[in-house]
């Protein structure tokens, strides 16, 4: 179909919205509230265009194309309206850019610049709000909120949590939580997906930069750091590299430069998780335990289950997440080996995730008053620290992780992409149950971005049904099926974020689906190219069991590597 844009005929597709057609033509239309893939809300009005036959301006994000439609995208009337909209937003905005996390990476700033806003046209009262600092993971600053509603839609429509919504009317409208109690008493699962879509600094992670910096400068403690499997394929984007460029060694080098005494990879403890989790699965299958078993490495998902499906808590694997497992063996096995008092160890993790900040404070994530992990930096915070410390990231020489956890298998690395835990676990479960290695490692059906992916895998004589969910909002369908009696599934991997950790709430802002796919591909490439592809063959893992843990699910494992869950039926908990 043809539409007419500024007197030029342009091809458009039946059923699409005007904005999509214009973008394909390379015509840049500003938006604040648009989320690709969700129903348009039409609220910000930045994308308005002039349309023949219509008295008012129409929002291109929400207007379905029709044959012969005639529009002007940058007429005086349109540009004036857009500029005024930005000016109106600014008239109720704190002039705080220099103190703002999004300075330099803020869509509102960008729009003001694009529209040559240079003068304060509208002046008047501004709303005053309290910062919501209640959550250990997410900080909300309603003063910077432009009410685009993206967080609300992501939280409800993608994550199926719906813990924030519009409240109030007129200029006093705001995004709030139930009873205005703050995010931490709501059902928020701390996934941080809202941060990724927020155009401004109204939503951000609870920063641990200051405390980590202080410890680094003091140098009084033995400071160790672990970095998660997915971060090496995303952090490069913060330094101008292509999405999916693996900078694992450079990251390690950067961390050493920052002053960390030891640098470990969470992929190592992902191998450890697989040892425990695959054993648990084998045990449940052989001894009639609760099935299907759910993975427990994604803390947002764990909270989701506790919140919305507490009756299924027994299905959750009792394994701690790789972050917590490594934290636990650092402050036990490693501490003993190096003869350091665990209290003198400061353990930091670099994570793609905001929920990890919540996970470290969960009950049972430590022994006595030593916690497994002391601080969590998101990929974004990590990049900030690199800049702050004057490290020229792109000129560093790659370096390797430290002993005694220096070797990881690619199975551990797979944790970064949706479906990866499942593939890794099946490799080891197969070995545990049959004594033989799988012949083909790749399970193509459970790779990619589809919300729910399923496969059947033969382990010896047994057909094992597996399902992989990414984006916790997709879990409901499967959980409901299971509750309704579906019994052909033995093992379910659920990642809180759509795409898995590569698209976690702590990752660089502004990733489109293409970038996320590139990040995923990078992880599978690593798996394909290396030779150590199974957790149970990792020599450092074997040593850890031989020297210290004994065997998977053994006494020591239970003390260090497993945990418990709580029912959160009440919203106030």
């Amino acid at each position, binding site marked *: 179909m043809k539409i007419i844009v500024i007197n030029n005929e342009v091809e458009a597709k039946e059923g699409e919205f005007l904005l999509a057609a214009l973008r394909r033509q390379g015509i840049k239309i500003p938006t604040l509230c648009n989320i690709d893939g969700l129903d348009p809300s039409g609220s910000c*009005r930045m994308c308005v265009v002039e349309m023949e036959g219509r008295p*008012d301006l129409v929002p291109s994000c929400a207007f379905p194309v029709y044959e012969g439609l005639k529009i002007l995208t940058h007429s005086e009337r349109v540009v004036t309206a857009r500029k*005024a909209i930005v000016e*109106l937003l600014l*008239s109720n905005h704190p002039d705080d850019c220099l103190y703002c996390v999004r300075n330099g990476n803020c869509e509102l700033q960008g729009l003001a610049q694009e529209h040559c806003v240079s003068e304060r046209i509208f002046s008047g009262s501004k709303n005053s709000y309290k910062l919501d600092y209640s959550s250990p993971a997410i900080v909300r600053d309603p003063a910077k909120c432009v009410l685009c509603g993206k967080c609300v839609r992501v939280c409800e429509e993608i994550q199926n949590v719906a813990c924030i919504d*519009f409240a109030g*009317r007129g*200029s*006093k409208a705001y995004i709030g939580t139930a009873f205005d109690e703050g995010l931490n008493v709501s059902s928020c699962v701390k996934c941080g997906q809202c941060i990724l879509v927020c155009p401004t600094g109204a939503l951000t992670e609870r920063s641990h930069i200051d405390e980590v910096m202080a410890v680094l400068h003091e140098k009084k403690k033995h400071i160790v750091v672990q970095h998660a499997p997915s971060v090496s394929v995303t952090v490069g984007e913060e330094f101008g590299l292509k999405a999916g460029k693996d900078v694992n060694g450079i990251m390690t080098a950067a961390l050493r430069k920052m002053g960390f005494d030891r640098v470990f990879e969470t992929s190592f403890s992902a191998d450890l998780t697989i040892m425990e989790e695959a054993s648990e699965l084998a045990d449940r299958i052989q001894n009639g335990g609760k099935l299907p078993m759910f993975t427990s490495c994604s803390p947002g998902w764990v909270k989701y289950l506790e919140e919305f499906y507490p009756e299924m808590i027994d299905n959750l694997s009792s394994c701690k997440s790789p972050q917590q497992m490594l934290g636990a063996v650092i402050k036990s096995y490693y501490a003993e080996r190096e003869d350091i008092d665990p209290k003198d160890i400061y353990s930091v993790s670099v994570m793609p995730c905001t929920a990890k900040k919540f996970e470290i404070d969960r009950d049972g994530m430590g022994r006595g008053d030593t916690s497994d992990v002391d601080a969590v930096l998101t990929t974004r915070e990590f990049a900030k620290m690199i800049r702050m410390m004057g490290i020229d990231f792109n000129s560093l020489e790659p370096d390797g992780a430290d002993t005694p956890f220096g070797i990881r298998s690619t199975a551990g690395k797979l944790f970064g992409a949706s479906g990866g835990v499942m593939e890794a676990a099946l490799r080891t479960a197969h070995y545990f149950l049959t004594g033989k290695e799988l012949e083909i490692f790749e399970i193509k059906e459970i790779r990619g971005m589809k919300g729910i992916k399923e496969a059947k895998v033969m382990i010896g004589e047994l057909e094992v049904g597996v399902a992989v969910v990414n984006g916790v909002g997709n879990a409901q369908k499967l959980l409901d099926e299971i509750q309704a009696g579906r019994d052909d599934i033995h093992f379910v991997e659920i990642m809180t974020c759509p795409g898995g950790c590569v698209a976690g709430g702590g990752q660089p802002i502004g990733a489109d689906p293409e970038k996320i796919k590139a990040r995923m591909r990078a992880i599978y490439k690593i798996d394909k190219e290396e030779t150590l592809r199974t957790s149970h063959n990792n020599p450092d893992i074997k040593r850890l069991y031989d020297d210290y843990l004994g065997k998977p699910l053994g006494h020591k494992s239970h003390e260090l590597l497993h945990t418990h869950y709580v029912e959160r039926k009440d919203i106030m908990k």
Partner: protein
Amino acid sequence: MDRAVIEGDPYRLIEGMAIAAYGIGASKAYVYLRAEYPLAIQRLKDAIEVAKTYGFVGNNILDSGFNLEIVIKKGAVAFVCGEETALIKSIEGKRGMPKPRPPYPAVSGLFDKPTIINNVESLANIPNIIREGAGWFNGVGTENSKGTKVFALSGNIANTGLVEVAMGTTLKEIIFEIGGGIPDGYKYKAVQIGGPSGGCIPESEIDIQIDYESLITVGAMMGSGGLVVMDENTCMVDVAKYFMGFIQSESCGKCIPCREGTRRMLEILERIASGKSNETELETLERFQSVLHMTDLATIIQDASLCGLGKSAPNPVLSTLRWFRHEYEEHIYERKCRAKVCKELLTFTIIEDKCTGCTLCAIQCPTDAILGSKKHPHYINFEKCIGCGTCLEVCNFDSINVE
């Protein structure tokens, strides 16, 4: 007036709905009613029950094989829920916020089903039209606006209440014949028609016929059918400010032009209507400038807002500006309110000849702005006067002059 229909003759509505539902093949109909109209709710409920027992509502109506369920949905009085997409959201149990059209409700509306939305008044007209025929209905009214219209007459008028007039009746007839004119010998100034987002009609246009097209030519609209009459003691800037305040607090807050734009407009009006003795030059400049921004702002709010509420929000300002520009100018440049409504712009003086020096005003003045000694004429210090009007109220000798 819809409430009056429901309270007075709910069967008309039920019959109208049943006919309309039959016409479009709908099996479920909702009446969205303000929860604070318990009488209307009760009477409608009872009427639906009665209609059911007679087989006019429910399954297999009058053996036609047609089924209709009528549900009463109580709403929480948000003005924006008069907008059809917001109304749908509200019935769905969500926050009443409009969404962009298309898709229009007729294609995808309540719970994503095709939905037709009409006012109670329209539906209640159907039974009579069907019974008496279209010719009967079209017999009254004008060429393009047929039938009658109910108005809620209020304000500075002798007879307030609901009036039903034929389309095409002149405004003059409604006010001076039906309404009985302006009480207390005051002069007519304007009428606000069409609710908070309608427009005003000045004396020069009082002979206008009330129909859809004519109203638009003077910048007003039929809207909800509200008709507020204002006499010469009404300040038109104050009127605009009042309506803008209402709209601002009823905006759903979803889209930026309406949420932030109406707020800034309201502030501009407040600035015009208020005066400070110690206004800085910058503030004076801002007052002058903001007026320049006002019409631009109005255009953008009309042009870019999402729903009808925002698009029509600037109407009261634009229409008062159109017909009463001089009042705005007096407020802005001369700092005067001719209707003596904008208190901060008033100058209070004491007429020496009349003042007996009783001291009552000086005692009551909250800011001690009145000076003078007993039995001698008093004097008001401008700098201290806040224009509260206390002296005017307490003086027994009519010696306070206000302008």
